[in-house]
């Protein structure tokens, strides 16, 4: 990592050069909701003017640039009594501007799942390699709880990260590509004062969190509370609409389907992001559903997000952006669900003197 | 040449909806020639009663699968006029562009899918896919362009989603508009090729004088709103549509008949042309001239050519509209409105002719009374009397039964009737 500072005006020139010459996406204002709040999304941008640098958060995450909602995995071509399978790992270069620390953390988690595991996914890697990620810090919103999961800062997974230190940005340069581009622009070595400003900025961010979710020993609580009535309570509200998983930066469950092309001369194998909240997530041939109830499926999302996943024992997938909580029409959010579970736990400890025998 | 002949066509094919043709000739004399619509009525005018104005265009667009944009816009126009809502100019342009898309799509569908097989002597377009693939593809390219314009402007090719009271709920992105413009340029050769092909067809010579009714606003070739005019010199205000249509019931048809100064009148591409030809674009003019089409043309078969001429106009004008949207940086596409009581007519030029929706609302903006008069309804009487004249002429000329049947079918199709629409 190399550190530099850059004036805000110069930084904009730099971003402008990047977005003008590449297919680029950045936060843009798309709507104003009925409460008067601005709604942002990562949208195509072709000049720096279009980027809302002061955005709060995008409604949907940047996950789909790496793990598209729908994607073709391979193609079959039929000919002469036989077929050929073609797989291509092609991705066009993309510049992504304005990702938050938690968004980048989520990418690092996706890396763990999709790259640093038994079977690395080449289509994901192709996109990851061809995406130039520029991160930007921000002051947390009232419902952000990434600090609880230690994702309010990030030290890998981006090409460039900018911290706002007032007149200037403090740049963490994490790739030679970024370094080379920046050579064309006027940057300076951080002065002692810049370093102090950065520390202040970090402290400010850290101090500003209003929401805290206690995730300590959550995996074991989740295990113990597997049959908790909390799941039924929240399950009764869940609409099974999959919204939470779609907007989440780190939910990655999917479905694979194969289809003949309409001319029947070929077929494609396609992946579609799915959600464990959807009714048929665990349905098998013959119609048996391993998770028939809303509560089961909802529990499962939390189980997966917070109980950790097999290969990275104890690493939680959730980064604490609360996108799911905001998007959920039924008002289900990680903070309330987890707090509920903990209450369950504590009240049990208070009212039952001896641990009940579990069967 | 005393002969008998009886033609009884039930559920005429290659038209939208269900209509019957009946011709009876006895001893060389035409006894009966009739056009009867037997479509199942749906009672939209009853269905909209009590519905909130906001929802009405979504309902009325379902009157017709082909000209759903026209129906939505006719309702929207009626309701906006009734409740004094003025949509932002950018929204008006988007709507106008949508009308262009729908008309192009509908004309291409009619010319290539429905009418062309008659000239080619095939039962439908599918055999032509094998015998004249290039020609069919040309038609498809035009139709696709029409659909793409509709999709970009209204969200969907059939049953628009973003045409709403007060404007449009979503405008096409600049990127999309640029793509459309490129597509128009790319498809021009297809239109020229189609034109060249139609020039090789022999259009039946048949003339029966009638009155042509359309909208006219003096500025643009008509699509949305304007005065109601006829080639017999009638001019009326949009709200006076009833005096323009004079709907009446006949006992052999579920679709009503209309009349103005004569026994029957006609609406549609030819009527628009006859009333507004000077407002057509340059290339459209040239094409009309090359077919010898000039106002007032009384050959119903020339409606096909008038449609082709309008396609040329749409190519020219759509590009101009797209330019103006590209230049316009205003975000304003939808005006908020307060529901209120009122009453007004919205008239638009659907692909098949002038379409009226008349709406009356109460204080909550709910519809209390609605009336829809559809172009095909206005053409029914004309089709009916054309059939009589055409059959009589054909009998006199000694045409065979098969020839008479074919001519009769062709003349009905040339009106591009939209029957389910007329029985709404």
């Amino acid at each position, binding site marked *: 990592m190399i550190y530099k500072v850059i004036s805000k005006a110069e930084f904009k020139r730099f971003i402008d050069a990047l977005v*003008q*010459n*590449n297919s680029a996406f950045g936060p843009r204002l798309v709507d104003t909701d009925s409460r008067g709040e601005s709604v942002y999304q990562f949208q195509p941008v072709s000049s720096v003017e279009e980027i809302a640098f002061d955005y709060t958060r995008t409604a949907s995450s940047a996950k789909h640039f790496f793990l598209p909602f729908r994607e073709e*995995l391979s193609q*079959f071509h*039929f000919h002469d*009594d036989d*077929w050929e*399978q073609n*797989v291509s*790992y*092609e*991705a*066009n*270069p993309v*510049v992504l501007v304005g990702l938050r620390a938690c968004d980048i953390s989520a990418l690092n988690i996706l890396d763990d799942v*999709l*790259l640093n*595991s*038994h*079977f*690395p*996914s*080449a*289509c994901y*890697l*192709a996109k990851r*390699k*061809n995406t*130039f990620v520029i991160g930007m810090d921000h002051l947390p919103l009232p419902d952000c709880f990434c600090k609880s999961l230690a994702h309010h800062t990030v030290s890998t997974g981006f090409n460039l990260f900018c911290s706002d230190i007032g007149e200037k940005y403090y740049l963490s340069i994490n790739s030679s590509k970024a370094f080379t*581009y920046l050579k*064309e622009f006027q940057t300076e070595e951080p002065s002692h004062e810049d370093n102090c400003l950065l520390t202040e900025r970090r402290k400010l961010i850290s101090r500003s969190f209003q929401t805290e979710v206690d995730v300590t020993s959550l*995996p074991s609580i989740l*295990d113990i509370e*597997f049959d908790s009535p909390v799941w039924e309570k929240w399950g009764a509200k869940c609409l099974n609409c999959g919204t939470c998983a779609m907007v989440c930066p780190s939910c*990655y*469950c*999917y*479905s*694979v*389907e*194969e289809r*003949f092309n309409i001319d029947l001369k070929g*077929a494609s*194998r396609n992946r579609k992001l*799915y959600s*464990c909240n959807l009714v048929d*997530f*665990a*349905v*098998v*041939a013959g119609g048996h559903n391993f*998770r028939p109830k809303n509560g*089961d499926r909802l529990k499962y999302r939390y*189980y*997966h997000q917070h*109980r950790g*996943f*097999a*290969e990275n024992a104890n690493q939680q997938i959730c980064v604490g952006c609360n996108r799911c909580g905001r998007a959920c029409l039924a008002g289900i959010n990680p903070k309330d669900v987890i707090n509920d579970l903990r209450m369950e736990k504590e009240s049990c400890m208070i009212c039952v003197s001896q641990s009940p025998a579990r069967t | 040449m005393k002969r008998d002949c009886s033609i009884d066509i039930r559920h005429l094919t290659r038209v939208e909806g269900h209509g019957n043709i009946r011709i009876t000739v006895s001893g060389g004399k035409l006894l009966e020639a009739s056009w009867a619509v037997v479509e199942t009525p749906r009672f939209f005018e009853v269905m909209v009663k009590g519905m909130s104005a906001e929802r009405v265009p979504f309902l009325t667009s379902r009157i017709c699968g082909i000209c759903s944009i026209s129906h939505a816009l006719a309702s929207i126009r009626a309701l906006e006029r009734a409740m004094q809502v003025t949509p932002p100019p950018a929204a008006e342009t988007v709507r106008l562009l949508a009308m262009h898309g729908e008309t192009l799509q509908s004309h291409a569908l009619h010319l290539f899918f429905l009418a062309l097989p008659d000239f080619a002597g095939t039962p439908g377009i599918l055999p032509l896919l094998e015998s004249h693939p290039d020609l069919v593809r040309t038609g498809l390219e035009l139709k696709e362009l029409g659909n793409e314009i509709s999709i970009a402007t209204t969200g969907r090719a059939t049953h628009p989603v973003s045409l709403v009271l007060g404007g449009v709920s979503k405008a096409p992105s600049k990127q999309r508009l640029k793509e459309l413009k490129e597509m128009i340029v790319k498809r021009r050769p297809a239109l020229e090729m189609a034109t060249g092909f139609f020039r090789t067809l022999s259009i039946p010579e048949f003339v029966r004088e009638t009155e042509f009714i359309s909208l006219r606003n003096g500025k643009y070739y008509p699509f949305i709103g304007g005065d109601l005019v006829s080639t017999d010199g009638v001019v009326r205000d949009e709200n006076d549509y009833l005096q323009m249509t004079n709907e009446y019931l006949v006992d052999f048809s579920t679709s009503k008949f209309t009349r103005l100064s004569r026994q029957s009148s006609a609406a549609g591409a030819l009527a628009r042309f006859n009333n507004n030809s000077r407002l057509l674009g340059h290339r459209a003019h040239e094409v009309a001239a090359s077919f010898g089409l000039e106002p007032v043309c009384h050959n119903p078969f020339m409606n096909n050519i008038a449609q082709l001429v309008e396609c040329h106009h749409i190519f020219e004008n759509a590009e101009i509209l797209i330019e103006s949207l590209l230049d316009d940086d205003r975000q304003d596409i939808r005006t908020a409105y307060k529901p209120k009581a009122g009453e007004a007519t919205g008239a638009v030029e659907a692909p098949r002719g002038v379409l009226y929706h008349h709406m009356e609302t109460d204080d909550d903006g709910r519809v209390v009374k609605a009336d829809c008069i559809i172009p095909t309804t206005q053409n029914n009487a004309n089709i009916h009397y054309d059939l009589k004249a055409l059959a009589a002429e054909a009998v006199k000329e000694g045409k065979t039964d098969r020839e008479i049947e074919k001519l009769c079918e062709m003349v009905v199709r040339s009106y591009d009737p939209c029957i389910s629409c007329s029985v709404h």
Partner: protein
Amino acid sequence: MHDMRFAIPRQDLNREAFASSIPEFNRRSDLMKTDMGYKCRITNVVNLTDQEKLFQLRIVDPQERRIFRFKPGQFLMLELPGYGDVPISISSASSNHEFLELCIRKAGHVTSALFRTEPGMHVAIRGPFGSSFPMDEMSGNNVLLVAGGLGIAPLRAPLFWINEHRDRFHDVHLLYGAKEPSQLLFSYQFDEWKTISHIRLHTIVEHADAEWKESTGMITELFRDISIDAKHTYAIVCGPPVMFKFVCSYLDRLGIPMNRMFVSLERRMHCGMGKCCRCMVGSTFTCIDGPVFDYWSVMNLKEAI
């Protein structure tokens, strides 16, 4: 204002680039096919019943054929181009490097389409995936194999293994139950198993017909006929969840340690690689941590049974 200096160069991924960018790629996945399948020719199809067929496959490319190795209990993703892929246990001997055998029940759309295929046609396989039965660990002991219905399919591979290493095992019992006599799969192999492999075979059906001479009833009733030395017995139980629950708790009462009983779980799967998460049970993937689990793990997995 186009300035090529700021255009990000595209990095295409070929196999080498992919391998080099993931340090452990070679160790883990070099021999595995993930997105692309191994093309196989269907060399033979045997109709076992009207619901089950045995497919014999041969990997077309000789080099790929050499590479493809699996352990008893593992499964593969079988793909019929245009229709989709399904997880199927490998039902042949792990020592058989020429052919693979898959015993497939017609259950849904992909399997139905497979039933319409004929010898000579090509399918693709990916894998092998998943955990396997610890055959080496079992050596020196008695083995109890319990199969219900289609559960015999994943048991064939360990059966072959036992036969090839018969001297390493003491008593080997196979308890096999089905609904009706006609639904007993591989009955043509029963004699071979009994006489050549010296396996004590006990069959039972729920509904007997006139010719049926063996036992009738639920599979647990077969335990009356055999004596089990709990201290020196390993068990492999495959069949519907209700069955292995019954059998395993019975064996548990007999005193067989839970970590010496093995079951094979079934869940919906779309990838086989621990990515799609469809097969997750608790925080465990059936596809990479399973499908073979010892009963202790299964007991500890929420929602496993």
